[in-house]
Structure formats: structure tokens, C-alpha cells
């Protein structure tokens, strides 16, 4: 076949293909390329048994200590040896800053503490159930969006948007009030949270961006357990239990967030590294992904503040 004929024939095929991919039947989700594994996912941290298979090494404190004693590496404990078992000393000043914002009165003398009690005593345990449906806002919200809306509507502060320093340090402060509580996001009962979870699951496995990767491309086996250059990715089960996380020294360009990575910010960071278009923090799809991640930590205790990188060099001796 000569070149131009082949071009025309194949062009026609391409046109048909392009049309086919746009004509999704009404009511059905658009067709995308998905990384395999969606059907195996369950909204509980033990779902990792069907993925990395390391869950029994990090399911509780005793297991982590036993795994360390056996000489297992951090990635075989899903990095819980330092991201969960150990608190971040460096993050304490961040919590102090968050507490200052929390108790800081506005011109009318009102602060977060006016409703939530001094130092937020009425917020204990709340973060373990986030994200959740906010009836007043009429949508599922993540911690940072709740903070933004509260600050604007009740304190008249317009500037505490999701990707600002006051918001991020407050988010970490409020999250730390749930330290030790088990994550419990109900995505089983019918309702907006369940719908968000299902959408988030699809988004987590949807292939996107210039590299045609999904979040799951890196955070499920065989990538989990292997090296990406010098790094090993985590399995996504249980990860959300220690977010927001202290992420010193890494930042995104333009950050002034005291090295706090909310889960929303973490997703944006991953998107940037994988050459995907970065989502907007607090947008519907970004919230959906967070619902999926947080529900994948259901049953695992929150641990705040912890730190992304292992600052201990003990493992070098092993």
C-alpha cells in the first residue's frame, strides 16, 4: 500500500476510534484507561493483604516492633516504623503555630476556640471521621475546606484558603487532636460519602497525564516493593492516617506552608512528579481521591505529627 492510501485508510479508522471513545452510553461513566486492581479494593486498611501483602508487618505497634526486631526494611512495614511509630519532634513548633491561630481572636474577640473550646477540646477525635458530608455547605469536605469555610463564615477571615499557611498549620493542629483515634470514614452506607469513595477509587486507578500513569501505578505492586530510582513508594492502605504530615525539607514551588503536607497538597505533589495536571485543593475530584485514601486507612489509628522522611540513621546499622 502506498503512503497516502495507507494514511487515508488508517485516518478513517482513527476517526471511527475517536468517535467511539466519545460516545459513552448515557448514564455510564466515561471510558478511561484504568490500572488493574480496582475490583480488589476494600475500604479498610486490611485490604492491603490483597495488594502489597505487608500488612501483617505493620498492622499494630507490636507487629511493627517485631518486624523491626527481625531486621525488615522500612518498605516492608509500609514506612510505619518512622511514619507512625515515631512522632516528629520537628513538627511540634508547627502545632504551636496552629494552636496560636486556633486561639487568635478576631476584631470582635471571636476565635475558633469560641465554638470548639479552648485549644479545641471539643474537636478531639473529629479528624478521624473526615472527610464527611457538610450539610450546610451541601457537599463532602476535607479538613482544609472546613477550616476555610469556618474562618470565612464565622470569623470573617477570607484569607485562610486551602493552600495557605494558616490553613495548613491549623489542619495539622486539629488533626493532632485525633492522635491515636482509629480512622473511620463510612463509605458503606448509601449517600454522598459512598458516592465520593466510588468516584475517588476510579480516579485513583485512572491513567492520566503525559506519562499515562495512575496514582495506583506507583502505589500498588509491582511498583510497591521495588525501586523508583532510589525511592520505594508506599502502599496506599493506611497512609492517610498520618496526614497532614511534616514534609521537611521537601516543598512545592511557591510553598509557604511550614512544611505541612495536607493530603490535598500531597496529591498535588504526586501529580506534579508524574507530569499530571495538578488538581485544585478542595475541588470535588480532589476530595473524592482523599475520601478514597482516608477510607483505605479505616481501622488504623491516626498518628499526628509524624514525618515523611526517616531522620533516624539506625537502619544503616542493620
Amino acid at each position: 500500500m502506498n503512503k497516502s492510501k495507507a494514511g487515508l485508510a488508517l485516518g478513517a479508522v482513527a476517526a471511527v476510534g475517536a468517535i467511539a471513545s466519545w460516545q459513552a452510553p448515557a448514564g455510564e461513566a466515561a471510558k478511561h484507561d484504568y490500572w488493574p486492581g480496582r475490583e480488589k479494593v476494600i475500604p479498610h486498611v486490611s485490604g492491603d493483604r490483597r495488594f502489597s501483602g505487608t500488612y501483617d508487618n505493620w498492622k499494630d505497634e507490636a507487629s511493627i516492633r517485631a518486624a523491626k526486631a527481625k531486621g525488615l526494611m522500612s518498605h516492608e512495614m509500609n514506612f510505619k516504623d518512622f511514619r507512625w511509630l515515631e512522632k516528629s519532634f520537628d513538627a511540634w513548633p508547627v502545632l504551636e503555630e496552629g494552636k496560636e491561630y486556633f486561639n487568635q481572636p478576631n476584631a470582635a474577640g471571636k476565635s475558633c476556640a469560641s465554638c470548639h473550646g479552648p485549644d479545641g477540646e471539643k474537636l478531639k477525635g473529629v479528624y478521624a471521621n473526615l472527610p464527611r458530608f457538610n450539610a450546610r455547605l451541601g457537599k463532602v469536605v476535607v479538613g482544609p475546606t472546613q477550616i476555610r469555610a469556618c474562618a470565612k463564615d464565622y470569623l470573617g477571615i477570607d484569607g485562610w484558603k486551602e493552600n495557605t499557611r494558616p490553613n495548613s498549620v491549623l489542619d495539622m493542629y486539629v488533626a493532632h487532636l485525633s492522635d491515636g483515634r482509629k480512622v473511620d470514614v463510612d463509605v458503606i452506607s448509601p449517600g454522598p460519602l459512598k458516592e465520593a469513595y466510588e468516584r475517588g477509587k476510579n480516579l485513583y486507578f485512572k491513567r492520566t497525564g503525559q506519562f499515562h500513569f495512575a496514582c495506583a501505578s506507583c502505589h500498588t505492586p509491582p511498583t510497591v516493593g521495588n525501586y523508583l530510582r532510589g525511592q520505594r513508594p508506599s502502599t496506599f492502605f493506611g497512609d492517610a492516617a498520618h496526614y497532614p504530615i511534616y514534609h521537611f525539607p521537601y516543598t512545592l514551588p511557591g510553598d509557604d506552608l511550614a512544611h505541612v503536607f495536607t493530603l490535598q497538597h500531597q496529591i498535588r505533589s504526586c501529580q506534579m512528579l508524574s507530569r499530571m495536571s495538578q488538581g485544585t485543593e478542595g475541588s470535588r475530584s480532589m476530595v473524592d481521591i482523599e475520601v478514597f485514601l482516608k477510607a483505605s486507612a479505616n481501622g488504623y489509628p491516626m498518628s499526628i505529627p509524624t514525618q515523611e522522611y526517616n531522620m533516624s540513621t539506625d537502619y544503616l546499622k542493620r
Partner: protein
Amino acid sequence: MNLTALRQPGARCLAALVAASVLGLFSPGVFAGSGQEKLQKIRAKWKPGEAMVPEFLTLYPCHEEDQPCGKLPPPAVEKVAFKGPLAGDAARGEKIALDVRWGNCAACHALPGAPGGSVGPSLADYPQRRPPVQYTYQRIWDGRVFNPDAHMPIYGTQGVLTEEEIRDVMAFLYQGKK
């Protein structure tokens, strides 16, 4: 769904125009064009080795379902034919393969003379394994021809690398250790 599309910008451009106008989708953002068209747009503003310019990433499917890029269909599989000889610039190919902000092959593969990640198979002994040149070319251009769930970026179809750059990487791989 191995859609056979010839790697011919003209043919695919025409097909795309037909498809887009039939569906009334000819508006910027919704129809983003073929990989090599995207590549031309990107390379006018972005130089390999620099941070990717965020505006170009909305040309590809994304997570934001309320945005046009969230509705983009996945790129059609592209089947390509390698026309010899293998005469790329191996030194440039090595640079492409190792640079995080270019080809970044080393993220997943060990390469001839260079360590790397372990997600993909080691390519350190690539010449000794004597894989056919056509196979290698297709694998880099769009590996979904062999495996729809292939992990590897579809370098040609998405316009991550130019045809010349892919040939350079191949020259580096087949040259082996220096």
C-alpha cells in the same frame, strides 16, 4: 482495541478534524490533538531538562472531572513501523534516558553502564539480548500494543519524546556499555 493508526501527522490530523467536527467538539481544551501535535506545542515553550510547564499538562487526561481535561478520552493505541538504519546519537540518548526532566528511563530501569530503578526489567545487557529493533521502537512509542496494562509511559503516542529522541535512546540501548 489495538487501533492501527499510522504515525503520520497529516493523516491523523485529518482524521481528528473529521471526528471533532462531526461531534461538534472543535473547541480548544476539549480536543487536544495527537501526541506529536502536542509535542510541537510543548517544545515551542519547554526545553528538556526544565520543569514541565503546567499549562501543557491539561492537554492530557487529568483527575479533575469538572474540567475539560477530566473528560478527555485515553489516547488511541498507535502502531508504528521502524525504518532503519539505527543511526541515533547514543550520547544524547544516554542523556535523555537519565534525565528526570526528559525521558527518565532510569526511574524504573537499570541501563547499560548506569544503575536505576527496579520496577521495569534491567536493560543493562540489552544488546546481548538482541531484541528486534522494531520491537524496541514500538515498546517505547506505545507498549500497549503488546500489553494493554503496560506500565511504561507511551512516549511516542503522548509526545513525551520526539521520534529523533526515541532513536537516540535506542542507539544508546543497543550500544551497550561504553
